[in-house]
């Protein structure tokens, strides 16, 4: 019982660290692409750690399945939106870039 709580706390702290890293990246990085990198990678890792902590804390398999499917969808949505925003910004900077390639 004790070990479970300790693991939960450790996972939460690690998740919070990655969230802080993501926020600092969004604030401090010089251009959009680096900011995207910081946000969509670090934050999702942090969310994964917090999801693991909560799955452990709640302890029912059904809830754990639901939490991990949430995390999976978030990974999917977040990486796709990272790509979409980056491509949007790139095409905005260079309007006639990859029209023919597609």
């Amino acid at each position: 019982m004790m070990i479970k709580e300790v693991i939960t706390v450790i996972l939460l702290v690690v998740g919070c660290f990655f969230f802080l890293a993501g926020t600092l990246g969004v604030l401090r990085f010089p251009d959009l692409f680096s900011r995207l990198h910081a946000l969509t990678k670090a934050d999702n890792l942090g969310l994964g750690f917090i999801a693991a902590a909560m799955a452990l804390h709640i302890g029912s398999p059904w809830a754990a399945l639901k939490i991990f499917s949430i995390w999976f969808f978030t990974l999917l949505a977040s990486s796709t939106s990272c790509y979409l925003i980056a491509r949007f910004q790139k095409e905005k900077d260079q309007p006639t870039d990859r029209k023919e390639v597609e």
Partner: protein
Amino acid sequence: MDIIFIIVVVFLLLNIALGLFRVWRGPTVADRLLTTQLFGTTGMAILLVLAGYLKDLNLLNVAITFNVLAILLVIGLVQVWKKKKGESP
């Protein structure tokens, strides 16, 4: 145990408040959209922690809704604003 959850939620909320400065500074629309993404992901984390703290699994449904609207806003921005290119080449 509960006090740790509260500290984590407060920390994540402060995280959001800090990240919102990008709305003022961010030069382009895409930069400002990033804060919505930040709010979406961090808000999901807050909801997960609250779900553990309040022992209420219905909060997970709210978390899925946050996820859905984050991707909806990104696709909305990309697709709606891309057509502008075609109007004024």
